[in-house]
Each structure stands twice: as C-alpha cells, then as structure tokens.
C-alpha cells in the first residue's frame, strides 16, 4: 500500500461492502474500493457485471441493500441524488431539448440558486473549455453527436462537483469519433481537475482514459489497478483475458529447493523461488500460466532453455507490421503468438512444428 492510498485527505469517495440485491439476483456483491481526488477511474466489465449498478448507486438512483458510500468522508448512502453534488453524463446525454446549449450547461447552477449573470459567465467559461463557445445559443437538436457529448460534459463539470460520473460515454458515438473523444474527455477532465468515474465495456476505452481500472464480473469487483498493473499482474483468468489478449496454459507444479516449475504437455515455465510471483504457488500442485501473444518468440524446435514450448502451426496470418500465428499445443489447446520477427517466420507454414520461448519476467502466474 503506498502513501497516497492511505492519505485520507486525498480520498474523494469510498465504497464499503456495497451490495445490491434484486430479489435473488445479486447485482452487486460486497464491493469495496476507494477513489482518489483528481483520479480517473473506469469501471470495466461485461453487461450484467455490476458496473452500471455501481454507478447508479454512487449517483444515488438506487439504494444499496447493504454497505456504505462515503463521499469526502461523509456517509452519503441514504442521501438523494439531488443533494449529492455529483455531475453525471448520461449515456444518451439527456440534454434538455427545450433549452439552449447555454441554458443546458447553466442548469446545475440554476438549481443551486446562482443568479443569471453569474450562471452565464461560468457556463460560457466551461463552453470555452470544451470548445463550443460559439454554439451557446443553439439548441441540442442542431448539434452533432460529438458536440452534444461535449455539452453534456460541460454541464456535468460546470458546478465543480465532487465527482463526475460518465455512463458509457462513447456508446452513442460512431467508431471514428470515439478515439478522438476519448482523448478529448481525458484532457478536459484533467484540465479542470475533476475526479471521474466512468463505466464502459470497451477495454480499449478503459486503457486509454483511466488512471485506474476496476474490473467487474458477476456483481463482484474482480481487480482494481492501473492499466499497467492489470496487464502485467492479472489476478484471475478473467482479468487476464479482459485486459489485452491472453494465452492460458494449465499445468502441474513441481517444486524444488530454489525453483518452481509449471509444466504441461510440450511446454514448461520456470521461476526462481525468491520471485514474488511464486508465493501463490507454494504448496500448490496445479497452476495457470498466462502468456501475452507479443511476449512469445519463435525459436528452433528443441531449443534447450528453461522456458519453452512447442506445437504445430495451424494458421499463419500476415498483418503488415507483424505475423500472427495460431499454434496448436500437444494437448489440443491453442495459443496465439504475434511476432515482428518477419525474417524468421516468413519461411514457416501451416503444419510445421514450431518452437517457442519466453522470458521468465513475462510469465504471469494465476493460482489454479
């Protein structure tokens, strides 16, 4: 645990054992995490994983069955949404069609009793930040999807809320705009120093925008960490598979005095016993090894190293900058391999046997 996490002054929000049951369905099951001030956190997961339920609980639209929600150290679990000082950008933006852009952005100031002149000044400042100052007098209908999104973002930010919630922010945009708006939203929220919680099922979006990502599965928080941590140290198969591409190899564990070996039919992975990753393996006899496709190298068949495997090439696909190989292992399982070593792969063809090697540092161990 680092100092920043323990520093309570830097904590914007805290979920403590939050659960939400709909009848027998556990939409949220004992979820706890902290949000730091100024942080951009994305809740990532497939549909029905509990990420949207979490967002709605934070916003106050649903009441948790159990657990507490603290915002800025105060218990907000039972406080209605209009008293939470949270800015939310809805999936469909929910702009008020009968108000101009300026009135839309000024709305949260209006509800807080701020007078018109002040309201318009603050709204214009925010519209300038999102680059729409020239559209202030227009109506939402007269604007493109990307512009509407920026209006919705300005409206969620203008009153300097404690937390800004983004519900599937890219869902209503076409693919081309998404990449651009991801960067833009990230810049804008950083510029105003907002603390953001976003929800998405798109892992790329999560990786691009977030300081940290919380991965949800079946109503539970599976793992939370920086994109880097999640990629390098996934704690479960689910996380390994959800963040980036992952090859999963199941093997048995052999323990010696100074090393641990995980091996299967035609492959082995070797770790020194003082490696922290081995902690999970002490006493175990089965383990799951995760190998990223770009971390596997093609080597001659029969190479004598401690971290090797071999199999039969099933597909070879040329993608310009790299080759992608699908390799069938002896036990019938398939693994993917990506390589930019075009020279050594060009001569191989489907049906050939291939040797593969990886560095000990690139091995990810998941307890089986």
């Amino acid at each position, binding site marked *: 645990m680092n100092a920043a996490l323990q520093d309570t002054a830097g904590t914007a929000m805290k979920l403590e054992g939050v659960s939400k049951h709909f009848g027998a369905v556990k939409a949220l099951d004992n979820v706890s995490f902290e949000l730091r001030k100024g942080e951009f956190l994305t809740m990532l997961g497939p549909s029905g994983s509990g990420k949207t339920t979490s967002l709605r609980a934070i916003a106050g639209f649903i009441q948790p069955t159990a657990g507490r929600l603290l915002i800025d150290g105060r218990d907000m679990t039972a406080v*209605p949404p*209009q008293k939470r000082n949270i800015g939310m950008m809805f999936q469909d933006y929910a702009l008020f069609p009968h108000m101009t852009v300026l009135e839309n952005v000024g709305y949260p100031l209006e*509800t807080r009793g701020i007078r018109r002149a002040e309201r318009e000044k603050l709204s214009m400042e925010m519209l300038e930040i999102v680059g729409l100052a020239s559209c202030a007098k227009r109506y939402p209908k007269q604007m493109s999807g990307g512009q509407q999104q920026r209006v919705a973002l300005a*409206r969620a930010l203008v009153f300097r809320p404690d937390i800004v919630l983004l519900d599937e922010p890219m869902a209503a945009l076409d693919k081309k705009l998404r990449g651009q708006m991801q960067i833009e939203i990230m810049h804008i929220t950083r510029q105003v120093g907002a603390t953001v919680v976003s929800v998405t099922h798109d892992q790329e979006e999560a990786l691009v925008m977030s300081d940290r990502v919380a991965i949800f599965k079946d109503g539970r928080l599976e793992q939370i960490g920086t994109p880097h941590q999640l990629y390098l140290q996934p704690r479960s198969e689910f996380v390994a598979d959800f963040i980036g591409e992952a090859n999963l190899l199941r093997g048995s564990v052999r323990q010696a005095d100074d090393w641990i070996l995980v091996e299967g039919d035609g492959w082995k992975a070797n770790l020194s016993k003082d490696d922290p990753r081995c902690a999970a393996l002490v006493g175990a006899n089965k383990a799951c090894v995760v190998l990223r496709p770009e971390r596997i190298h093609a080597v001659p068949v029969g190479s004598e190293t401690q971290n090797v495997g071999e199999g039969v090439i099933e597909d070879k696909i040329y993608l310009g900058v790299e080759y992608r190989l699908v390799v069938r292992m002896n036990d019938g399982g398939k693994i993917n391999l990506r390589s930019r070593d075009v020279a050594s792969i060009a001569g191989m063809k489907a049906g050939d046997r291939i040797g593969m090697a990886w560095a000990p540092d690139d091995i990810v161990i998941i307890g089986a």
Partner: protein
Amino acid sequence: MDKLRRVFFWLMIGLTAMFLLLPTLIIVPMSFTTTSTLEFPPVGFTLEWYGKVIGAPDWQQALINSLVVAFAAATLATVIGTMAALALHAHRFPGKMLVTVLLLSPMVTPVIVLAVGMYMVFSGWGLIATRLGLVLAHTVLAIPFVVVSVLASARMVNPSLAPASLGLGASRWFTFRRVTLPMIMPGVLSGAVFAFITSWDEVVIALFLADAQTRTVPIMIWNQVRTNLDPATAAVAAILIVLSAMGVLLSYKIREARS
C-alpha cells in the same frame, strides 16, 4: 387517365367535406331569415335575431354559466388529469390497472347512466342546481381526455431527462416546473382544449343537474328547439360555430409558434 384520377380525387374530397360541414353550415344562412320560424332557404336578410339573442338576459346568463363552468371544469380536469397521467406514466404501483380503468371509464360509460348516477348522488350532497355541481360533473367527464393526451406526450419524452435533472441538483418540484412540464406542454394544452369543449357542449348531465339559474347554452338551445324553434336559435348556433372555429385556429397558431 391521370386527369380522371385527379377529378375523382377532388370529387371524393369535396363530397366528404360537404358531408362533414353542410349540416353545420346550413344553420348560418338560416339565422338571417326575416321569417319568424326557421326556414331554408332564408327569406330576406336581418340581424334582428342576433340582437335579440345578445340582448336577452336569459341567453346572457346561460353564456356566463357556460363559460364559468367550462373554464373551471377544464382547469380542474387539466390539473388532476395531468398529475394522474404523470403518475401512471412514471410509476408502478399496486392497483395501477384499476386506477387507469377508473380514470378512463367516463369516456366509455353512457353519459345518460353517469347523469342519472350523479343526479342521485349530488342530490344527497345538495349539489343539484349549483354551478359547483356542474363543474364537478364536467370535470369527471373531461379528465379522461386530459389523461390520454398527457400520457401520449409523456411517452415521447426521453425518460432520462428527469433523473438527469435530479442528478444536477434540482428538487422534484423544480424538475417538474423546468423540465417535465415544458416537455409535456403540447399534451397538457390540447387536453385542456378538449376538456373545455367537453364541458362547453355537454347536454345530458346539464339537463339533470341545472335549473333556470344555472342552465348552460346547450340547455338553452335544447329548450328553444323543443318549444319555439325561432331563428334566434340559429343565431346562437352561428355565434358558437364562429367562436369554436376561432378557438381551433388559435390552438393551431399556438402550436405553430411553439415549434
């Protein structure tokens, strides 16, 4: 061929328009007749009957009664109907189906049945021959029109607007005033117009509940038709036609100006 089709097209439109309008419009020329009974074609031209109607105290009283009752009933029905429609639209609650059926039932119940029932109940409450009794009866009759029209409008409104408003710090009342009501306004206005008209031309219930002091314009016409069918009745009808047409035109203009 094309020409034939066009002729047929306009012929159908003309016939339909005549079928719809002629019974209404035929009364207008008849109001100018110089004879003392209703006659078509009218004989000569006079505004005498208009003067008679406008100057007659019983017609004036009836007009005031009609306007007061219709305004009050339309206002009440619009307020109650709008609240009911919003509740039915936004919430699920036990007995919702029953409430819906009860609210809409005056639209399908034969008016004569309602009238007899109200007569019985209202006489126990001392509401017979009072404007208040008429207002309440017409309100019941008009509520379904408001409910149907507001429900239709509410269904067109993006359901995340109200939560968005709450999330941005608005109270429920502020949300209603600033977001929900403006969004459903077309439905509320047309519901109000329907409510007004429902009361304005209602005869059956008024026959049971009104007396000589509280009778409305339709009752006056009804009495005239039954006793002495003079052209003054036609004059009243012509005035009502012009007023109604202006009302419809006005509501169109309002709608045009809003969009």
